[in-house]
């Protein structure tokens, strides 16, 4: 399903490139901004911000609740893990100073830490343990970029980019108390094809640098994962209903450097 969304976004994104290419000369003439008096060939972008994951964690939550965990504490743990930090770097070769093609790398990291109370099966004892969960999504791919003046005669641009590439998922689940419930810590990893779509604004205080802010949408779904418990690992093919969805929304600010 994720792949169809990526394809759909790509088709949608390509439409304005074609329209804008036909009007390039007009746009260049009417815009007196400093940016176009110094056309550039290369663009390096660095951005950082916050992410919100859409990952459906109901299975993981149910597993903990069935093991006796307090539901509200589990809920709090997984609300924490949905919110993460985002960092990305990209480099693009610009054509006609309007669109470009390049590469993009991004990392999303989220951390959650919570003391959770478990009612044990004997109905007499409770276990109080700290659960630490860390999730990372590394992504690298090709990126297509397009920008357009947002307001004539001012150095404000609207831009969008679309990227398709390889995503790596890593989930570290750790408890601080070794018991019969948690024999060992768990590492889950997976690889898949993913994609991202970004839209934002760029302000050019100088012709070679811009300050950007925007929203991004990252899509990736993992149909098989490697699960490692202590020294033992196994590869698991997931049913469609159980597939890990590492999709997320990113909000970011960043700097863009333009070179000839």
């Amino acid at each position: 399903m994720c792949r169809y969304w990526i394809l759909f976004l790509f088709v949608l994104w390509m439409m304005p490139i074609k329209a804008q290419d036909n009007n390039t000369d007009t746009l260049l003439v009417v815009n007196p901004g400093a940016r176009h008096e110094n056309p550039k060939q290369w663009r390096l972008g660095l951005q950082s911000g916050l992410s919100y994951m859409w990952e459906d964690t109901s299975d993981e939550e149910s597993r903990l609740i069935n093991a006796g965990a307090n539901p509200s504490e589990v809920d709090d743990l997984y609300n924490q893990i949905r919110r993460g930090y985002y960092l990305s770097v990209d480099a693009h070769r610009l054509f006609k100073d309007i669109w470009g093609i390049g590469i993009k790398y991004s990392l999303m990291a989220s951390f959650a830490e919570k003391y959770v109370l478990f009612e044990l099966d004997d109905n007499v004892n409770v276990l109080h343990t700290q659960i630490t969960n860390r999730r990372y999504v590394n992504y690298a791919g090709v990126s297509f970029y397009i920008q357009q003046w947002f307001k004539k005669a001012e150095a404000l641009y609207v831009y969008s980019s679309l990227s398709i590439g390889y995503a790596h998922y890593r989930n570290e689940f750790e408890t601080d108390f070794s018991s019969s419930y948690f024999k060992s810590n768990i590492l889950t990893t997976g690889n898949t094809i993913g994609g991202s779509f970004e839209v934002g604004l760029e302000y050019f205080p100088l012709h070679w640098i811009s300050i950007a802010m925007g929203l991004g949408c990252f899509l990736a779904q993992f149909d098989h994962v490697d699960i490692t418990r202590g020294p033992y690992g196994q590869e698991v093919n997931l049913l469609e209903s159980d597939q890990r969805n590492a999709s997320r929304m990113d909000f970011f600010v960043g700097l863009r450097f333009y070179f000839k």
Partner: protein
Amino acid sequence: MKIFGKWIIYGFMIWVITGCGDDFLDDHSRQINHEAKTALYLTPESGYYEHSVKLPGAGGASYSIGMCPNWLNFKYMRGTFKGDSVLLKFTVQNIPATSKPGTYVSVLSLIIEDVGIYIQPVYMVNE
């Protein structure tokens, strides 16, 4: 400009590398290395109770209650040792599993940072 770019890349690489070690998969289970010499006897009528745990060498260490019977209701599940001791504050409550007359045996364990696990046997006597 070049130096600025270089430090951004270095910082980024350090962040990625340090964030993804597999060490956490190793067995870090703590050992039970301290056990109370005497058991703690409680009754449903005990109500609010304070119990002092003294452990030489635990000065300033933080602790959390690891496991306890659910007929003990702790005021704080975490805290810090003051000197070599800590005062645990809890109430004793009767639950369905302990409603019949008898003696119910359980353990209270404290996970103490850099020290290990402390075990305190607890008995509830319901007459």
